[in-house]
Every structure is written in structure tokens, then in C-alpha cells.
């Protein structure tokens, strides 16, 4: 076993970036994720691994630097929080349209507008349904611990390159700021070989020029391009669903929650079980693709599902689609930076399904 360290989620993410052999990070400060760039700066990654670190003039510039750097075939990333992620949407759409791999971290805070710097999960729709313009999807990883803030960097890069698509880690202010023990993975070497079929290295006589673009003015060709993208997203749905089940086997009720809410619900499961209520937790680890099959498969045997979210209720729409009316799905939510206690969640379960 590797060495355990006590770290903040944001710091673990940054350390993992260096260790994952990331070639370049471009960012712009915003609470509650500024520790990412600060940690990287303190580590001098240009000396440790040769990784590029650049503070951009805006999130718009940062994501476009990512877009350019991703075109070179290297491992590149950016991080931000909700308002900054909104600014990146055009760039993300270009990355998806041009089929470029990259890793994006959103440490969500409450909105709309400038909102609050407190934690939230209200960018679920934006991350899972598109966010920018056009028909595209990203793989969305939802870390629920500092450990996963580290592990998902490596996983995120693997998936980004496997599909040549942006991958987003949808974290929140709690996971980003809290300190936990984390076991860091060993240093991965930076890339030295590049796929000459698509990267911009400079055209050599042995190949056609490589052009990275999302533009095609020919409708028939552009439709084919869109169909190709859709086929890729379908492959993600088939192969990349990840989730965690806790006490689900004998469960009559289910919590569905991700990220920090899943951590709260873990405690709620224990509290409810102590009261004799058979409840389990499904924690989606990928939000796109969503574990619809797993939730749907269990629906008929359940008396009720409670989704717990730090939003007005966004993931609940995917849970309802998954159960297809087979069981009632209720919501317990907090907004604006408020966070429910495990007891509050148990109460909500009791009330929602009139459990005595």
C-alpha cells in the first residue's frame, strides 16, 4: 500500500494531475477551487515533470488554451467552479465537436448568477445534458471523497483518450474543501508518443495535413459527423456506467445521491437501519452515462426512492426516467449552500413515504 496523506480534495486533485503525467494545466482563480492552481504553483510542476502551468486571463481563455493544447495530443486539463464553468461552455462544445480529449474539474458552488461560494450540486443539468451548444455529451465523474478526487484524475484521462472526448469531474465545495486521508498513486510518465492520425505536430511528408475543426458546411457530411458522435456517446452508455451500491440487496427504500450528498446518505442509511427501516443507497459514480439500468432493475421491488440533492432537483429527472413510473420517486433537497444533515434526510424519507 502507498503512503497515506492528509489532503484537501482540491489539493489531492492537483497532486494527482502531476502524478497522472498531465502535460498542461490552464486555469483562472475562483472559490472554492483556487487551491488547485495554488497547489500546482507551489509544486513547480515544470521542474517536477515538465508540466505546463499557466494562469489565464479568463476562463474563456483557459478553456481555449486547453483546446489548443489538446490538439497537440497531450494530456491537458482545467478546473473552475460554476460561474467559470459557464464561461467555458463554448470551448467545451468546440472540444467535443472536434473530438479532443481533456479533463475538466467543476467544484460546484451555488447559483444562479454569482450565487454563493458555498457548496451546491446545481450544475448537474449543465454537465450531463450538454451545457454548451449542439448535440454533445461528456463523461461526468462524480467524486465523493478526497480519494476519488485523486483517483478520478487518472481514470478521467484514460476515458478522455479512449473516446477522444472531454471528461468532466463534477465535484462540489464540500468534496473540494474537506480534508481526508488519501492514498496517492505512483507517478505516471508524461506522454512521449502521439497519434499521428489527428494531432497537430506539423505536417510531415508521410502524411496528409491534420486539421482540428468542428466546422463542416456540407449538411450531409456534418450529419454523418453528428451520427458518429452519437454512436460514440452510445458506446459510453454501454461501457462506462459506474455506480456504488450500499445495503441495497434487502432494501425496501433507496436513496439515490452522488458526491457530498452520497456521503451524507451513507450516514442516513445507518441511522434508518438502526430504526429498522430497510434502506439502501445507490451512488452514481458516472452521472453521464447514468446508472439507469441498475436503478430501473430494482424499481419494481421498492416501496420508494428518495433522491437527495444540493439543487432544486436535477438528477431526480434521470432517476424518474430510469424507474419509468414503477415506483414513486421523491426529492429531498437544499439550495444556496445549505447542506442537509443525515437526520434530516431520514426524516424526509419517513415523511415522503409515510413510514412509521
Amino acid at each position, binding site marked *: 500500500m502507498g503512503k497515506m496523506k492528509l489532503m484537501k480534495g482540491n489539493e489531492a486533485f492537483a497532486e494527482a494531475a502531476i502524478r497522472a503525467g498531465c502535460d*498542461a494545466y490552464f486555469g483562472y482563480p475562483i472559490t472554492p477551487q483556487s487551491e488547485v492552481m495554488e497547489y500546482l504553483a507551489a509544486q513547480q510542476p515544470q521542474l517536477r515533470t515538465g508540466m505546463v502551468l499557466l494562469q489565464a486571463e479568463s476562463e474563456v481563455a483557459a478553456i481555449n488554451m486547453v483546446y489548443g*493544447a489538446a490538439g*497537440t495530443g497531450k494530456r491537458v486539463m482545467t478546473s473552475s467552479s460554476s460561474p467559470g464553468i459557464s464561461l467555458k461552455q463554448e470551448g467545451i462544445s468546440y472540444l467535443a465537436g472536434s473530438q479532443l480529449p481533456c479533463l475538466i474539474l467543476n467544484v460546484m458552488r451555488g447559483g444562479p448568477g454569482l450565487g454563493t461560494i458555498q457548496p451546491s450540486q446545481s450544475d448537474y443539468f449543465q454537465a450531463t445534458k450538454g451545457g454548451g451548444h449542439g448535440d454533445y455529451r461528456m463523461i461526468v465523474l462524480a467524486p465523493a471523497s478526497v480519494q476519488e478526487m485523486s483517483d478520478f484524475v487518472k481514470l478521467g484521462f484514460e476515458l478522455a483518450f479512449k473516446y477522444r472526448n472531454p471528461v468532466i469531474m463534477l465535484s462540489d465545495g464540500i468534496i473540494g474543501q474537506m480534508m481526508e486521508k488519501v492514498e496517492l498513486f505512483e507517478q505516471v510518465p508524461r506522454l512521449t508518443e502521439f497519434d499521428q492520425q489527428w494531432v*497537430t505536430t*506539423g*505536417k510531415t511528408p508521410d502524411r496528409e495535413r491534420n486539421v*482540428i475543426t468542428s466546422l463542416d458546411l456540407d449538411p450531409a457530411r456534418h450529419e454523418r459527423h453528428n451520427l458518429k458522435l452519437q454512436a460514440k456517446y452510445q458506446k459510453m452508455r454501454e461501457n462506462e456506467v459506474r455506480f456504488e451500491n450500499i445495503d441495497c440487496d434487502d432494501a425496501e427504500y433507496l436513496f439515490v445521491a452522488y458526491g457530498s450528498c452520497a456521503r451524507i446518505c451513507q450516514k442516513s442509511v445507518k441511522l434508518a437501519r438502526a430504526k429498522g427501516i430497510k434502506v439502501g443507497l445507490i451512488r452514481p459514480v458516472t452521472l453521464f452515462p447514468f446508472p439507469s439500468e441498475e436503478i430501473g432493475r430494482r424499481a419494481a421491488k421498492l416501496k420508494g426512492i428518495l433522491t437527495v440533492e444540493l439543487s432544486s432537483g436535477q438528477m431526480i429527472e434521470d432517476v424518474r426516467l430510469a424507474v419509468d413510473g414503477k415506483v414513486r420517486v421523491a426529492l429531498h433537497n437544499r439550495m444556496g449552500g445549505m447542506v442537509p444533515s443525515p437526520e434530516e434526510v431520514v426524516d424526509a424519507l419517513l415523511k415522503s413515504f409515510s413510514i412509521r
Partner: protein
Amino acid sequence: MEIRNPRIQEIISEENLVYKKTSLMTDKALSYCPGCGHGVVHRVIMEIIDEMGIQADTIGVAPVGCSVLAYEFMNIDMQQASHGRAPAVATGIKRCWPEKYVFTYQGDGDLAAIGTAETIHACNRGENIAIFFINNGIYGMTGGQMAPTTLVGMRSSTTPYGRDAALMGNPLKITELVAMLPGTYFVARHTVHTPLAVRKFKKAAKMAFENQKLNKGLSFIEIVSNCNSGWKMTPVQANKWMEENMLPFYPPGDIKMNGEIVKKAEKAE
């Protein structure tokens, strides 16, 4: 096309060749309006890359504007950027490939309106890239709307009675502005509307690529160009109008050489 006439065949033989299209321009027909400066600037940049033998080490960034399809004509590795962000995209590429030659090709709306922040900051950081800035005083691609560079009094589809500085602001001399930044190493303004002007621009363009080896900062070349379609003129009228109206306000010449501001831009030719 096969030519059968022996007299013509004799004329077009190799030894009579005075000009040959560089192989770095593809055979695709240019999508630009006849008489437009974009095509000339493309050719000159490709000739330089050809002559310097750096095709295998050069990456270009195409903007959003009439030259959005530059990568169809330039036979080099290229990446298309979103509107205004080419300097950020080029920064990302250059930081990952510091040994390669990276350039952007941008219009005035792209570079001096929506992309002002990216332009200023790439210049200020002194990214070791070249920026080719086509100033035609108008948004060509979207049908001739006002650009940040549109002259006072100049008509466009969104200033049908002429640009009124009090209402619409003044034309922006972004080239003079970036010359003031310590990160720019070479800043110049050129035109491509006469053979002499093309030769001068070519010299400057070559310097913009050679400078990248020095790692001393950004090379920025503005090319004042025509947009006969947007200006609603014939190509000949457009060039004349450009000389009489654009060049007094945007005078060609070197503005900054080797990191030092040069005295005064030379008079319009």
C-alpha cells in the same frame, strides 16, 4: 487541363516559368471574393513556410471570419479556433510544443472586438507566436457589419449612415496598442495591394517566423486589406478607397522592431 496548342505549350514550359504556386497552398479553389486580400496573405505566409522548410514544424490557427476555412487552402497542420480565441488556442499549442512555429490568422472583428482580451494578454505574456491580423475595417463574413476598425463616417450594414463616433465609439488602433506592451518583439503594419507592398509584407512575415527561434516575444503584423464585397465596391475601387481612406488612419510601416518602438510609421504609399 491538357493544352494541345504547341505554341502555348512552348510558352508554359519549365524554363519560362516566372511564378509557381507553392505546394503549401492546396489545389482547392479559394472561397474568397475575387480581388480580396485574404488569398494573397495566405499565399505569402505559405511561401515563407515553404522557403524556410518548416512545414513539418508549423501549426496554424484559423479564426472565425471569412478565413475560417484557411485550413482548406493552407497545406499545413491547423486548428480552427472559436471567434476571437485564436491567441489563447495558439498559446495552448505553443506551450505544449515550444520548439514549433505557431501562428494565428485573424480578422479585425475576431482579433480586436470579441477577442481583445486574448489578443492583449497573449501579447503581454510575450507568447513566442506570430499573429497575422487582417484589418479590412468590416465584418466580411457576416455580411458587412461595423468592425472595431471601421473608420468614422464609414458605412456598413449596421452603420448605414456612417460610423458616428459619439454613438458607436472610435476605430481601434489595436496594433499601436499591442506595440506598447513589453511582450511584443516585432509589430508592423503592411498592405498587399501592390506588388511592392506584397514584397515588403513577405519580408516582415519571414521575420515573424524567424523571431520565434529567438524566444523574445510575439510578432504582430497587421495587414490593412480590402473587402470589396463588404464595402460594396469593385476590387479596383476598393484598393483606391483603401489607399485614400484606410492608409492615412492606419499607416503602413514598422512600429516596433527588436522589442523597441521605432520612431514613426512611414507615410502611406
